[in-house]
């Protein structure tokens, strides 16, 4: 049994939050590994190779971003940042450095566990079927045929423009990962994000939402985070 559990490394210096999150993870069937500082995290990371890392940014010895950088140097291990810093700039910086998602404190257990499931699941997509040519992507009623470049909802084809399809394909390949404006713009149009290109992205997203028949506040498939970016949502939150 224990062998099949996902190993999650929790890096957090605040002992109360550490206990809380560890309990939350363990009662949900994950194995929690614990580190209180950046240096301890490196040791645990190297000896256990966890499936997921939950990382607090304000650590006693070094900023959590150092550890993020350290892991991203040679591994795509998903990382969820857990932080009290809540401005858009903090989020964008962490996401552009390679974090998969960003949860701000205070959070509810349901919220954090949903993100954990979502990230673990998306990692499975991209490593097994998602990116392969000829692969198909399914998420509830949404289906994407990467070969034919077609998108279906409940079996009916949704007619998308080239750009719109590219955006959807990109988000689906990174399902569960919060994609910043600049990351999407770089992947779709190349070059860096200026005000103009962000607007171009927003116009395309508005069209996609319309074609998908998305209702306001219903978090269907794509979540928008104001001033940060978009995320395809593997878990209904």
């Amino acid at each position: 049994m224990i062998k099949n559990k996902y190993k999650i490394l929790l890096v957090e210096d605040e002992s109360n939050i550490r206990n809380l999150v560890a309990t939350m993870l363990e009662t949900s069937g994950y194995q929690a590994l614990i580190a209180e500082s950046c240096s301890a995290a490196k040791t645990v990371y190297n000896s256990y190779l966890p499936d997921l890392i939950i990382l607090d940014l304000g650590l006693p010895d070094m900023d959590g971003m150092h550890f993020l950088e350290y892991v991203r140097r040679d591994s795509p291990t998903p990382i969820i940042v857990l932080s009290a810093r809540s401005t858009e700039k903090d989020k964008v910086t962490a996401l552009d450095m390679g974090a998969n998602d960003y949860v701000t404190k205070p959070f509810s257990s349901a919220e954090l566990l949903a993100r954990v499931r979502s990230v673990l699941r998306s990692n499975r997509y991209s490593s097994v079927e998602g990116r392969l040519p000829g692969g198909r992507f399914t998420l509830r009623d949404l289906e994407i045929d990467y070969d034919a470049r077609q998108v279906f909802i409940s079996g009916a084809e949704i007619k998308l423009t080239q750009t719109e399809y590219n955006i959807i394909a990109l988000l689906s390949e990174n399902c569960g990962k919060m994609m910043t404006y600049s990351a999407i713009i770089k992947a779709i149009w190349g070059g860096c994000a200026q005000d103009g290109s962000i607007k171009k992205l927003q116009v395309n997203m508005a069209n996609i939402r319309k074609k998908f028949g998305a209702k306001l506040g219903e978090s269907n498939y794509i979540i928008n985070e104001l001033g940060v970016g978009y995320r395809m949502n593997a878990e209904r939150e």
Partner: protein
Amino acid sequence: MKKTSGYIKDTLITIILLCMAFGISLLFQYIFEVQEHITTIFVFAVFLISLLTNGYVYGILASFCGTIVVNYAFTFPFFAVNFLIPINLISGIIMIIVSVLTSALTTKLKRHEAMKAESEKECMRANLLRAVSHDLRTPLTTIYGSSTTLLDKCSDMTEAQKNKIVEGIKEDSEWLMRMVENLLSITRIDSGEVKIIKTPTVLEELIDSVVLKFKKRYPGQKVEIEIPDEMVIVPMDAILIEQVIVNILENAVQHAEGMTRLTLRVFTLGSQAIFEIKDNGCGIDPKRLETIFSGYYASKDDFTDSQKRNAGIGLSVCATIIKAHCGDIKAENIKTGGAVFRFALDTEGNINDQE
């Protein structure tokens, strides 16, 4: 940018006033053929320059220029600079003294005014801090009391009792979370003297985010949404405006008794986007209507525990945020029952024709 334009303005004032003084002096000399008053004219010009410009530099520069010009053009020997004549020297010194004294006086005055504004702000902040710390006590009492009770008396309690206590912890920590969010919003505006940073925000995405957030907090409360079909882009600090709308919606849920419909409507009027949050509850007490947005800051010592949860910090924060966006927020009662909150922000115009 503001600084450079200030320098340019001050320099222009100095040059224009000096030229005027020179022109008037020439006129005096030409018409009345007197020279005694010319120094007075320049002293007056220097006085005005010191009064109208920032700092000492312009006034002193002007008095030097004035001294040299008077010396050169209007006093004996004409068209030569000669400071050996004591009366010329004295008039020059007088001009410099006038300029320094005036500059010192105006600078002091300006500083005094800035200090007054600062102390008013400080007073508001102190009021806020006092009110907040007072407000924080109640939820903390619940949380602290509940958790200690749970730890000590766990075995003596029934499942239902335990659940009720934990529910209390959850409710009061949610209240604390909202309070902290509102406080953070204020610091976002207050940090530094810089105005808020506005980014072009898609209205639809803003409303989507608002509704999602609101639904998470009040799953039972339905909100009817009406927004324009076309894409509207509004430059704003999206996180703050989101806070405003959520606060107003929340206010309706908590205070509009008997409410069955809650509507969030946004429409464009000219170059503005009008946000309207309407409920059909009990309306707002007319006595409170005037101070509804300033209540929290203004509260002196007369607030009691029962008032606490009603007052709330939410609407005061709304007013602060909208003010920082150079907008206006209003609340009024609807004749047919209920209340409506309205605020307007400038849009960026229709962007479809840009593509």
